[in-house]
């Protein structure tokens, strides 16, 4: 019965017709809008990425003299070497990793512990504290960067990775605490209480039971925060402005400004490198990423 709910059923009023034998031609015709829609979606999403790739393999003369949708005359793989070296990609990618990984570890550890404390444990004022964390989701980064810049400058740590790690950690906590509290809500209290009967404290029951049980939730949280931190520009611009601290986003932007205006191939190549890195991650984790990001939005 469900199979009759078919093509464009939702869009056109006359679409609901039961299958009758011999109407194959009609069925194909009715399927046409669907196929066209899908083709359109694939084209609009995929073609710009393909276009970027073919242009990353062109020489300057090729790019300037031929239509941009034409295939490269010669495949200039050297563009990638130039992009990698001139664009300082090794340094900027390393910087991004140095900043992202510790932030993720801190967010997961602190956020899960706080989510557990606020949801499982019972004490006065926990509702208020949860609300306090929630307010953080709304606060724009612009509202905190100037005092932080002032403070970090006075402390003399603006030339290090520390400001970025601290801000990413703190900035990731509101959503993480809230998400973890929601996840803990689904687990019966008895599980944690039972552990204490065997003589474990609630702290131990968190590390022995709570944390491991949250494995899936933690992966979700980590995925959400990874993309937020990896793709961030504002904090990275302000606290990673020094060339040796440039994250991949800032590095790419600078490369485009200094060099990309006249060297098209290497600029396209540099964009491709950053995109393909994410693509590889996405190929392996796409279902988890999609579910995780959607969960993050609904809970946030």
């Amino acid at each position, binding site marked *: 019965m*469900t199979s009759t709910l078919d093509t464009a059923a939702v869009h056109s009023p006359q679409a609901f017709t039961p299958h009758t034998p011999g109407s194959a031609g009609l069925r194909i015709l009715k399927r046409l809008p669907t196929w066209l829609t899908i083709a359109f979606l694939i084209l609009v999403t995929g073609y710009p990425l393909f276009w970027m790739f073919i242009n990353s393999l062109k020489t300057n003369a090729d790019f300037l003299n031929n239509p941009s949708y034409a295939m490269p005359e010669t495949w200039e793989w050297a563009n990638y070497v130039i992009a990698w070296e001139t664009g300082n990609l090794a340094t900027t990618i390393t910087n991004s990793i140095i900043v992202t990984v510790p932030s993720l570890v801190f967010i997961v550890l602190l956020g899960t512990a706080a989510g557990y404390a606020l949801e499982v444990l019972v004490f006065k004022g926990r509702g208020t504290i949860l609300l*306090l964390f929630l307010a953080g989701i709304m606060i724009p980064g612009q509202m905190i960067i100037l005092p932080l810049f002032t403070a970090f400058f006075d402390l003399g740590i603006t030339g290090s990775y520390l400001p970025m790690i601290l801000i990413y950690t703190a900035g990731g906590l509101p959503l993480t605490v809230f998400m973890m509290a929601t996840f803990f809500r689904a687990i019966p209290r008895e599980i944690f209480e039972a552990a204490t009967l065997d003589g474990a404290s609630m702290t131990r029951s968190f590390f022995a039971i709570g944390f491991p049980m949250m494995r899936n939730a933690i992966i979700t949280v980590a995925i959400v925060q990874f993309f937020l931190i990896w*793709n961030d520009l504002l904090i990275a611009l302000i606290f990673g402005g020094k060339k040796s601290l440039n994250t991949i986003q800032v590095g790419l932007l600078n490369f485009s400004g200094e060099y990309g205006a006249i060297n098209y191939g290497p600029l396209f190549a540099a964009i491709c490198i950053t995109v393909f890195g994410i693509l590889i991650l996405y190929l392996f984790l796409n279902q988890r990423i999609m579910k995780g990001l959607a969960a993050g939005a609904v809970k946030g």
Partner: protein
Amino acid sequence: MKSVLGDRKAITLLLTPALLVYSVIILAPVLWSFGLTFFTGSVLTGFEWNGIENFQRLFRDPYVWDALWFTLKYAILVTIFQVVLGYGLALLYNFVLRKSSVLVRTLVFFPVVLPTVAVALLYQKLFQSAPTDGLVNELLVNVGLPAVDWLGAGGTAFVVIVIMDVWRSVGFYGVLVFSGLLDIPDDIIESARIDGARSWSLFRHIVLPMSLPILFASFIFSINGTIKVFDSVFALTGGGPGNSTTPLTLYMYRTAFQFSDFGYGSTIALLLTVLCLLVTLVIFRSSRRDNTV
């Protein structure tokens, strides 16, 4: 049993680190930033008290009004596109493609995870007009239309920003709403069908009302993000040409880091925060009304 769950030591040990980091890095700076609005200067030049001058300046500054207008225009337009197109995609996934939607879903979602800077640079090239036409102008010229200097004027640059941000995020809203549509029980739709509901009335009376909560959640999430737009505009147009595509976030960034006025920068940041707060309040007021009806 309550005493076990009220374990003081555990509460302190587990909650304090997160609360401390959050208070020091987020909450305290919010208050401090509020204090900065009464000063002028920066960390390099030193701060100087100037009373309510920043606020007077805020109301007289035409750039602030331009930036506020741009922010609202952008946030409303992009939010509508994100939610409506995302809903369209979700309907396509759930009712037309169904089990076979995984591939399309996965592909359309991909731009969501791409770095904004990379996407913005790609769009600069797609919409380029000099020294050679980008893909979009080539298409226009091939069908006999004139090439457009997309990023050379405020109006067309705005169009490019909106197209880019919708392209970048619509797959996300598709999946988000789709996950909500999955919760509509099949038998409700089946029984409505048996009762003779046709596609349009099925959609109008069953699917649409039942997807309102998820549409509402998407709307909140969308407006909360679009009102703080920074990355995509900064990387695509840098606010230009002139000031024509400068949202509040970017104007604040410029004031603080190019013109070294942290005091006035904080004042603009405060305006932005108040805007976010207002939007949140309005949304929650209207949602409460929805629930009581």
